């Protein structure tokens, strides 16, 4: 792999294949020229231009680089689980060029100083763009406001609660009002702490049979309703992160119809798996929010298809092996997922559950809009893109995964969708072995 290849001087030309242009869908690609960190030209003009290198993209898809609104890089403080170097490489391998870093680090990202620490580390060791999310309360304890103005000035693009529940509606209301002051989006993973209690799996058939402690759907839906009402009242821009229930999608759509400024995302594993993944006590699928029933899964997929859910996220949570080597209730939640997001999405496309343009929109323009940005494969745009072979297969394994976390959702079979090349500002962040460059 030539991780440092820089196409900013001689230029790189991609010829053939299909371009995913948000708003237009998949269109054929006569040529796309990358130079000086930007897309210099597209179409016939690019085809005719001279460049130092040319890649034949026949049969492949060229898309704007994927944007992940929910990713854990584990730095600072949890180096045994992952770090900015390992997890941004994993992101690039998954086709992502921008990831939003969860505030759940150690220390928690609740001040400009921690944000600066993260961004310094990214500048020296990261291979994709990292946009930190600040903690909405100090230490994510849910008691005191964080220094939101300081977080914003240091580069945080939003404030959120990570995966912690919010116990107190009065504090939540004040958090929203304070964030609104600075035009910060609040990203909430909705969970009512009292209703979730000690649970760690969907309260349903599988928990009943296996005797696991359930988190009822209402732990999410009650929190969604509360947050929607509070957002409506405070006028803050609300982003609901990691939805898991059909009812949440329904309430989200209704709130939008009422004109509430709300967006939402769902983790890819919620679209691909259900509670039955836990049937053999498989602790990899101990995730939070938990994997729910088939009807929920279908409603979430439909939500992405309809655009009610704006973005698909990885909710990448790398762990050291000890965190998953225990009886299921004693393990830590989370999948090492960022390298499998595209592949699992392509399986949904193969199963005719999702259209490819809708999948790609939810990985590119959808999350970009949540952040108030735009993405495009047009002349002048930043050269953040990925090139993948939708029909090429790869086998996730300890040999192929770049994340420090090895608990990927699929390890026992080959998956469709091999990412061949990921460029961030015209630099190669990932290049598959054997890609002729």
């Amino acid at each position: 792999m030539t991780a440092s290849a820089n196409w900013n001087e001689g230029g790189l030309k991609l010829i053939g294949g299909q371009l995913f242009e948000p708003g237009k869908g998949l269109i054929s690609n006569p040529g796309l020229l990358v130079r000086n960190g930007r897309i210099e030209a597209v179409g016939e003009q690019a085809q005719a231009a001279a460049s130092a290198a040319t890649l034949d993209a026949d049969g492949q898809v060229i898309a704007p680089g994927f944007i992940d609104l929910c990713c854990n890089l584990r730095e600072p403080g949890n180096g045994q689980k992952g770090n900015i170097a390992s997890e941004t490489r994993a992101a690039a391998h998954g086709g992502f060029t921008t990831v939003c870093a969860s505030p759940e680090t150690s220390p928690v990202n609740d001040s400009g100083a921690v944000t600066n620490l993260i961004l310094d580390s990214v500048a020296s060791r990261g291979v994709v763009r990292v946009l930190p999310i600040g903690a909405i309360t100090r230490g994510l304890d849910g008691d005191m406001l964080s220094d939101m103005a300081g977080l914003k000035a240091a580069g945080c693009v939003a404030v959120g609660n990570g995966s912690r529940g919010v116990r107190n509606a009065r504090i939540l209301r004040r958090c929203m009002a304070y964030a609104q002051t600075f035009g910060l989006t609040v990203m909430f993973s909705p969970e009512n702490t009292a209703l979730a209690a000690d649970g760690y799996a969907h309260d349903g058939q599988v928990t009943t049979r296996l005797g696991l402690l359930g988190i009822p759907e209402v732990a999410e839906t009650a929190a969604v309703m509360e947050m929607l009402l509070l957002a409506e009242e405070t006028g803050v821009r609300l982003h609901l992160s990691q939805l898991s229930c059909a009812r949440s999608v329904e309430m989200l759509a209704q709130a939008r119809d009422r004109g509430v400024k709300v967006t939402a995302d769902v983790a890819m594993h919620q679209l691909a798996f259900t509670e039955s993944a836990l049937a053999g006590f498989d602790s990899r699928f101990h995730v939070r929010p938990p994997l729910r029933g088939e009807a929920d899964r279908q409603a979430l997929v439909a939500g992405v298809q309809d655009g009610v859910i704006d973005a698909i996220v990885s909710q990448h949570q790398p762990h050291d092996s000890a965190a998953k080597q225990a009886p299921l209730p004693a393990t830590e939640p989370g999948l090492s997922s960022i390298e499998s997001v595209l592949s699992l999405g392509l399986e949904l496309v193969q199963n005719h559950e999702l259209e490819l343009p809708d999948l790609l929109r939810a990985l590119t323009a959808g999350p970009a809009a949540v952040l108030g940005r735009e993405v495009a494969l047009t002349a002048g745009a930043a050269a953040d893109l990925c090139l993948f072979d939708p029909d090429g297969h790869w086998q996730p394994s300890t040999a192929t995964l770049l994340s420090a976390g090895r608990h990927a959702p699929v390890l026992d079979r080959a998956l469709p969708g091999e990412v061949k090349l990921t460029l961030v500002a015209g630099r190669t962040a990932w290049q598959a072995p054997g890609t002729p460059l």
Partner: protein
Amino acid sequence: MTANDPSPNHLQLTRDGQLRHFLTLDGLSQPLLTDILDTADSFIEVGERSIKKVPLLRGRTVVNLFFESSTRTRSTFELAAKRLSADVLNLDISTSATSKGESLSDTLLNLEAMASDMFVVRHSQSGAPHFIAESVTPGVAIINAGDGRHAHPTQAMLDMLTIRQHKGRFDGLKVAIVGDVLHSRVARSQIRALNVLGAEEVRVIAPGTLLPRDVEDLGCTVEYDMARGMKDLDVVIMLRLQKERMEGALLPSEREFYRLYGLNQEKLGLAKPDCIVMHPGPINRGVEIESAVADGPQSVILNQVTNGIAIRMAVMSMAMGGQMAERQQRQQEQQEGRA
């Protein structure tokens, strides 16, 4: 795989369908459960001899690995292993290694270094025996002695043995399980066993706060009213109620629970005249059951304890047999590979 497909069998059965671990009743067939009951029947006779030993596990080391304390279950497993001539090591882990911060994986590695042949595991977390069975080296049998709220398969099988002794059959039987089903690993295993063995109806009788979500999916009907639930019963199984259930707002008081769901002679009179009364123990007199019923002629609670030893002997010897058969098969395959 669907949510209803209980398939831990790749773990607990050999390729030939013999038991090699005993983790749950999910996925075990009626012939296999009947085989366990028949084997246990043959061991009951051993307990009646003056020299109560058979040499099936001679030279084998059985480790009782109790991460949660239990006097009755541990002592019947210990007696069962000793009657099979095994060497027995009792480890009360709840107070030692794990409280010093050692992980379960590390505890297991240390125990395996002692060359044990079988672990009998009691753990407060659902799925712990599955995890152990997946982690141990091949050749070591894992017997589930109760895990979290998940399963207590030997308890359920000794209950089935007790029912068969008194009723002679399962088909046509109406059985009720009364009380705290939500927290009960025993109830989950009993419902499974009764369904597989062909009971006509399994009812659970409890208030809504003590029932898991969609409990009917396990193969039972739900009855909130005990008087209605007792009607036509052949067997009534009372579950133990933990005192801490009042604290989590699951029940208002022991008194109200006893008034509504405690078994007294009046309520028992609503069942069939030959209805038997069971309880996995230890019983709370005056909370789940009246003393006159617990000690009365329809109570078979002490038979359950005696049968516990026979069932545990059966399961231990069958699992060890499965492990031996598998070991021979492995050796044979290795030899063939060399030849």
